[in-house]
């Protein structure tokens, strides 16, 4: 079983600012978790159609990285993208409405789960084609360099993308032209039902990405504090040195590849493996630290959970009650 060797770090909880930040990390992960759970319900109710890929288990990666961004920075992701927009602060109502294909959705109901966009929150899209997001992110970073801005671009994708030719082409150009892009592979061990060792000739992905003239490293993607610490360093490096960086975040998804997945666990991974990883639940780990160190009490956490559940419920209600796009919308937005 491929598990990270990076040890979770404990937090320094000296200042009240730091305390608030820790709580905020937890709050964001919890929002994503509860939101995704609601999505699953809506999918079973056939309110959400098409493909639905949930982020449950991987919350620490998005939250840890995105917590370190500044407003001139940009984010691009693959189709498993709810976590990114929620961590960036998109309105859960507009996200849920998009998943239900409503006109009040982030993309007026035209994008759906795999194709969220939120320009105001610096999210330049979820992409349904493996590899696609890497090209887009590389171009966004190209613009940052071309205009001599100091922003950086985060690009999130899965281990399956390592085998897309486009990744190779873009990594080479990013290395050649020193683009301020941070490629983050969320290595959750499986591309759909194909295990890492069945799809990648080199299972150390940080090593695989090490030949394009820019640094790469492996990090523990299950521990949000560790992700945050690494993200801070990596983002600082890229912002200052103006060169790309590759990060392999070792993580795991606790749910099927897609909400429709009927072969999991069983056909390609075992129940035991899944259970073992669930013991490293990023929410549980942080909760243990927060409560153990007295940063927050169990009852405050309960209140937080209630609040978040209310937010998610409100998002579901909003989405339900929103109107479908009008027929004319079909022919709008084809050309700018």
């Amino acid at each position, binding site marked *: 079983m491929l598990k990270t060797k990076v040890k979770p770090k404990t937090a320094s909880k000296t200042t009240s600012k730091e305390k608030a930040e820790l709580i905020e990390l937890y709050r964001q992960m919890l929002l994503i978790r509860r939101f995704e759970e609601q999505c699953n319900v809506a999918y079973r109710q056939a309110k959400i159609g098409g493909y639905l890929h949930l982020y449950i288990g991987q919350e620490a990666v998005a939250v840890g990285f995105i917590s370190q961004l500044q407003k001139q920075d940009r984010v691009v992701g693959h189709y498993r993208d709810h976590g990114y927009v929620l961590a960036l602060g998109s309105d859960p109502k507009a996200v849920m409405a998009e998943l239900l294909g409503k006109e009040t959705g982030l993309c007026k109901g035209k994008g759906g789960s795999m194709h969220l966009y939120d320009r105001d929150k610096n999210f330049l899209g979820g992409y349904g084609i493996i*590899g696609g997001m890497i090209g887009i992110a590389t171009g966004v970073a190209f613009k940052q360099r071309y205009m001599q801005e100091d922003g950086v671009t985060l690009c999130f994708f899965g281990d399956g993308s390592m*085998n*897309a030719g486009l990744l190779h082409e873009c990594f080479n150009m990013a290395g050649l032209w020193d683009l301020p892009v941070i490629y983050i592979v969320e290595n959750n061990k499986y591309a759909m039902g*194909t295990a890492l060792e069945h*799809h990648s000739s080199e299972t150390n992905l940080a090593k695989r990405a090490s030949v394009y003239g820019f640094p790469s490293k492996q990090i523990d993607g299950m521990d949000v504090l560790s992700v945050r610490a690494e993200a801070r360093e990596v983002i600082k490096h890229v912002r200052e040195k103006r060169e790309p960086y590759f990060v392999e975040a070792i993580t795991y998804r606790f749910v099927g590849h897609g909400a429709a997945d009927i072969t999991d666990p069983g*056909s390609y991974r075992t129940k035991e493996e899944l259970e073992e990883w669930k013991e490293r639940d990023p929410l549980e780990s942080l909760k243990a630290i927060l409560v153990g160190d007295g940063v927050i009490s169990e009852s405050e956490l309960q209140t937080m959970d209630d609040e978040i559940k209310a937010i998610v419920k409100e998002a579901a209600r909003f989405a339900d009650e929103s109107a479908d796009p009008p027929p004319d*919308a079909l022919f709008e937005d084809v050309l700018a």
Partner: protein
Amino acid sequence: MAQMNYRDAIRLALIEELDRDERVFLIGEDIGRYQGTFRVTEGLFDKYGPTRVIDAPISEPGFVSMAVGAAMEGLKPVVEMMTWSFGILAMDQIVNHAAKIYYKSGGACPVPMVIRGPAGPGKQLAAQHSHSLETWFAHSPGLKVVLPSTPADAKGLLKTAIHDNNPIIFMEHPQIYGVKGDVPEDPNFKIPFGVADVKREGNHATIVTYSRGVHLSLEAAKQLAEEGIEVEIVDLRTIAPIDMETVFRSVAKTHRAIVVHDDWRFAGFGAEIAAQVQEYAFDELDAPVLRVAGADVPMPYSRVLEKLAVPTEQDIAAAVKRALA
């Protein structure tokens, strides 16, 4: 004969061919351990093992071109495109390699391979996963393009495809995997390419279609029959090679033609049918050839918008009436 659905009919053809010829192998994303996204290859990994049923990395250009090389040396690859929308990544390998090697080698190197998988809209898969690409492939010489509408056709045409010595584009439709029908179990049952099938006879108008369009047209035909309009439905089954004779014969009887397909209308395959019918059956036509096709927009995710973007029975019935007006 056995009753089975379209998905199972395709699987049966694969099994027969895997059993018949050791040079036949399957390759594609998640066709093995995961049992196939649309479960067409369910059980085959367990039955034939990883040498014959190969889970590929997400590298469409890579495994398609690998299959081309293997085919040149005498293997018979059957590649699954998880959806044909991903085939867009492999256009160069298909159109500029598989389709041209026989010609540019002066006939020295045939490329006997099949690329199969679902193409078409209707599952709310949105802009990037809902393509019908038959028009692009039909436009490119050196390929044969197959679009079966029924379980029996699917089986018989896939068998022919695997026996053929050329690169074959085999497009299934995600909305008809569950459709049932009688399927010959005889392993020698094959359906030749370039032979259209009249799925319904009628005198008033000819509907030229394939794949899901056949089912839509049959539905429309029922409605129309209630109003006394009898349409003839020509299922092309393969659009390259194409059996225009059957189309012309039908038009000579009905004097009206309507083409139906899911793919975008503008510069879509319907245009070729219209162009040929007006060119070669000009004097037979009592009305222009009409097209019922996908709206010229990227596919929207919203269920209501998606419905508006694809042809319906109503659209077909309305077009037939317009042709008869």
